[in-house]
Every structure is written in structure tokens, then in C-alpha cells.
């Protein structure tokens, strides 16, 4: 039924449950990484998942603050998924946000506030979601790469970022979207009430990516922790369970394995 072989990460999120092929519906998945180890590969993996499932009612809205389309396209192509084709099919909506809010100085006089920027962005998302639902794409995933850059676009107003995310969150409950967001945890180390803590409250699934405690290794790129909050409809075995494993990133996929079990 599923063309993609399940791995540890999929299992930890709940993709291996045959009764519930889209476990992320109505849930917010947060990936936290740090300077030493990038968590972008989790986004790529989940992106590929969304498109490789036989369920053609999946669609993705991608808010790219950190990389250009070419970058993602090349990576996903090596993973065996053609983003450009998906975009033409109308299953992939790409928002190039590299310069969102950057033209600041000029527009500020033109009365476009930071809030206006995010309201406008949300408006675009909402319209895109509506359009996708119209085309019978029932499960829309919104991917945000990444939140700390969204914060820069909002000129450092974390409240605004939270408001924006709240509005995206309303799409979870209203039309059964999923949200996958990447954030950098180490950015918030010295702040007392960090945005990341708010996000952790908001998240239903939390994935932390970090380097090995023992330092750099050639055949292990880092470790990963998956935490599922106890929400309804979740497999019993995943409820609030913490799972730790390590990963090795390749061009055509990522290997996940338990510590020490790699051949």
C-alpha cells in the first residue's frame, strides 16, 4: 500500500499505522535544530513523504525563508521526487519568502507595517489552502523553513510570529491541515521566555536534532529525539513517548538507526 519503506522516523511519527495513513492531520510538527547540525533534512524527508504516498489528495504549501526553489528542487530530485512537476500539477505551492519584509525601509513610509507583511502572507496562505481544498486536495501541509527567519521578517517581534502561527493553527482545526516548522533552538538559549518554548507548547510532535554528544563522527551525522504529545487519535504506543535515535544523511535519503546498532 505504501510505496515508501518505513523507517524509524516514520514509525516515531506514526506513519507506519495502516489504519491512519496521514497521522499529521490537524497536528503541528516542530523540528528544532542548532548551528552544528541542521534539521533541514527532516523537512525534506517529510516533503518527500507527502508526495510519495499514493494518496494524491496530499498537497504542500511551502514557505521558504531560507533557501531558493532550486535548492529544494535539486535535493528532492535526488530523493526521487520532482518538485517542479508537483508544482505544475498544483500539488506544490511554493512561496519564495527570501526577501519578505526586506524592502522594509521603502515600504515603511508607504505604511506597510511588519504586521501588514504577515497579514498579507497569511492571506496568501489562506487563499492557497482554499484553492487546494476546492481541487479536492484534502490534506494540505504547510511547511515553514524556518521560524527564526520569519522572526527576522517580522523585525524581531515574536508576538507577531506567534500571531501568524496562531492563524496558521486555525487552519489545522478548520480544514485539517498539518504544519511542519523548523526552528533553531540555540538561538533562544539566553532568553528568558523564549519563542521556542511557546512553540513547544503549540507543537503536537517535537523533533529535536543535535550533534552527537561525543563530537563529529564520519558515519553518524547526529542524533534525533521525537516526542509525541498525548493527543486523541494517536497510536497508543506513541503517546507521549520519547524516542531517541541517530541518523546518517545521504543524497538519496536518510538512514535512521538506534545508537550503536549501525552495521
Amino acid at each position: 500500500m505504501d510505496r515508501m519503506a518505513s523507517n524509524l522516523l516514520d514509525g516515531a511519527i506514526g506513519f507506519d499505522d495502516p489504519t491512519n495513513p496521514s497521522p499529521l492531520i490537524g497536528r503541528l510538527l516542530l523540528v528544532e535544530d542548532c548551528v552544528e547540525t541542521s534539521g533541514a533534512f527532516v523537512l525534506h524527508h517529510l516533503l518527500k513523504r507527502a508526495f510519495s504516498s499514493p494518496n494524491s489528495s496530499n498537497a504542500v504549501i511551502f514557505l521558504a525563508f531560507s533557501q531558493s526553489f532550486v535548492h529544494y528542487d535539486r535535493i528532492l530530485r535526488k530523493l526521487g521526487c520532482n518538485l517542479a512537476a508537483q508544482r505544475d500539477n498544483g500539488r506544490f505551492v511554493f512561496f519564495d519568502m527570501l526577501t519578505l519584509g526586506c524592502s522594509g525601509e521603502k515600504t515603511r513610509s508607504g505604511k506597510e507595517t511588519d504586521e501588514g507583511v504577515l497579514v498579507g502572507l497569511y492571506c496568501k496562505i489562506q487563499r492557497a489552502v482554499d484553492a487546494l481544498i476546492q481541487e479536492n486536495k484534502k490534506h494540505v501541509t504547510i511547511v515553514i523553513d524556518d521560524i527564526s527567519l520569519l522572526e527576522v521578517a517580522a523585525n524581531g517581534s515574536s508576538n507577531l510570529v506567534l500571531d501568524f502561527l496562531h492563524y496558521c493553527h486555525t487552519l489545522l482545526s478548520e480544514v485539517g491541515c498539518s504544519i511542519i516548522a523548523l526552528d533553531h533552538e540555540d538561538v533562544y538559549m539566553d532568553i528568558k521566555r523564549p519563542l521556542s518554548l511557546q512553540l513547544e507548547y503549540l507543537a503536537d510532535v517535537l523533533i529535536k536534532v543535535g550533534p552527537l554528544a561525543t563530537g563529529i563522527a564520519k558515519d553518524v551525522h547526529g542524533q534525533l529525539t521525537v516526542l509525541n504529545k498525548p493527543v486523541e487519535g494517536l497510536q497508543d504506543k506513541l503517546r507521549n513517548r520519547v524516542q531517541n535515535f541517530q541518523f546518517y544523511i545521504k543524497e538519496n535519503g536518510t538512514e535512521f538507526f538506534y545508537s550503536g546498532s549501525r552495521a
Partner: protein
Amino acid sequence: MAATKPRTGSFSRNFSSAHSSKTPGYKHGPNGTTFISSGIPDLDKILCGGFPLGSLVLVMEDAEAPHHMLLLRNFMSQGLVHNQPLLYASPSRDPRGFLGTLPSPGASKDDKSRDNSSEQEKGLRIAWQYKKYFGDDQESTNAIDSKYEFCNDFDLRRPFDRHFFSGKHVECVSILDSSSLSNFRDRCATFLSQVPRNDGNISSAGRIAIQSLCAPQCDHSNMEWEMLSFLRYLKSMVRSSNAVAVVTFPPSLLSPSFSKRWQHMADTLLSVRAIPDEDKELAKLLTGYQDMVGLLNVHKVAQINTQVPKILEATTFSIKLQKRRYLVLECLNQAPIDVSSGSSYGSTGSCSGSSKTASLEF
């Protein structure tokens, strides 16, 4: 030799085409990237080719040492040698003065004598030095004329002649006054608009060198979000053009949180550190301590168009001035006796993430 290069991705370019390309100073890398040289041959090796076009390179300064200037100078000089447009910005009143300190390329004759003389000093190190000529630049070595090499050795004691700048595209900007960050942003945008990215041939590549972006004497130095926003803008502009931006900054002047944000912004992240003077213990511990002027750390290597991180054999290198003229980077943990085995980072193969060679590291 292109064929010996191990590649992991299924979509990779035919490498022989790289050498048929007429324009000097560019090298095709994996995943459709193109490298330009950092101006330091060893740094290019360490970074598996150089700085990829479209990337933002951040260098974390050491408040106690000016090593970041070495990196900037060589980066800029290399651009001048290759006739690439250059934008230099610094927090000084007269940034143009800095151009007078740029090193000029060592003549190829010099190169020979240099190699010979150092052979007497350290025979094994030379073997390693030569190695690069068996690498990607084989053809250019045959061409002898050092001006058309991908990367030159720069003689730090011989400044560029003033007249050399005439006819070259060099812009200098001071980032001292307050409104300058937005002005400067527009300046960068105009500069980058001359080197747009079109998927065909690369006619020219721009180099942006920004020194001490968050220096305390700048009026914007306390506007942390503005600086971050500038960096983000710069990064996205550079991404869509054929250019590389090297920005140095003293992280100690930023709050820890912002320092991290800057680091996340970087495609390639380097840091330089001073080493203590006349430290007997270090002298015992590190071989070649006498020639060392500082340390260089590689924190991130640009991952453009790929998700595979580059795991380097070593991340800490000593910065040495060979014959007091040439900038050389060496693996820190190597005693001279190990050079033959340890220098493998010079060969391109070890740079691919899938390489299985075991590494010894501190």
C-alpha cells in the same frame, strides 16, 4: 582525474566540462554549484573547492587578533587577479585605503624557489603542497602563467601596485554612519545586479567583502534586528546572483542569541583565533608552533543544493606564514611525520560526506 572523483548523487555534472570552460577562476562543483577561490589555496582544499557562488561566508573574528583581515585580503586580491568586480565595505572613514594593503600574487618563479627552499625545511610538507597541482588544476599548472590559475599564492609582503586598480571594478563603501545600512543595502543590490545569475555561462562573478559588520563605532551596531535583516537580504540577493559575500564580525559584540542567529545565517562559517605568544606548553604540543600566527576553525561548509553535510577530517587548522610571505593552513593535530596520511583532506575524495576514512581528531 575528474573521473576519479567519487560522487554520491545521481545527478552530477560531467566534470570534464569544467576544464573546458574558458573563464579562469571558476570551478564546477557538485550539485550544480560553481566555486570561486578564497584566495588561500589551502582553504579551498579544506572547503572542498572554494566558496560556492551564491553563498554567504561569515568569519567570526577574534577581538584580539586581525586574522580575519588576512582572509579578507586574500579573498579580495584573488578577485582582482581574476578581474572580478569587488565591493569592499568597512567601518573606517576611508575604506579605499585598505586596498593598499592587498597582497599581490607571488610570481611563478617565486613559487618554484619557494617550494625548493621549503623543501629543505620540511620535505614532507612539500609533497603535500605539490599535491594540489595533481588535483583539479593540473591543466593550469601546465599553463604556467599563475594569473590564470584558479587560486594564486599571495605574497603578503608585496602589496598590489596602485595602478593595478585602475580599470578594475572596485567599489569601496564606508558603513560608519547611521543611515548607511539601508543605503549600503541598496549599494549591494546595485552591485549584485551586474552579476545576475542565468543558468548559462558565467561571464563574471562578484565578490563582496564586508569587514566587521557589527563594529561598535557603527551607528547601526546596536540595531541588532536591522543588521540581521540586512544579512538576510544580502544572503538572498547573493543567492540569486553570481557572487560570494564574505562578512567578518566580532561575535563577542553581539548578544549570544544574535550571535547564534548570525551563525545560522551563514552558508560557510569560519572563525579565527589568536594563539598565545611564547607559550612553552603549546610549543611542545603543536608542531611548527614558531610559524603559527593563529588558528582557523571551520564550523559550517556550505550545503547548497544538497542536504548532505560535509564532514571534514579536521575542523581546526593552524594559520602559518610561510617564509613570512605566504598564508598556509595546516591540520592542527598533525606532526610532520604524519603528513603523508593526514593530508588526505587535500584530495577531493575525502570531502564527500560518504567517505569512510577514519579520522583522528581532537
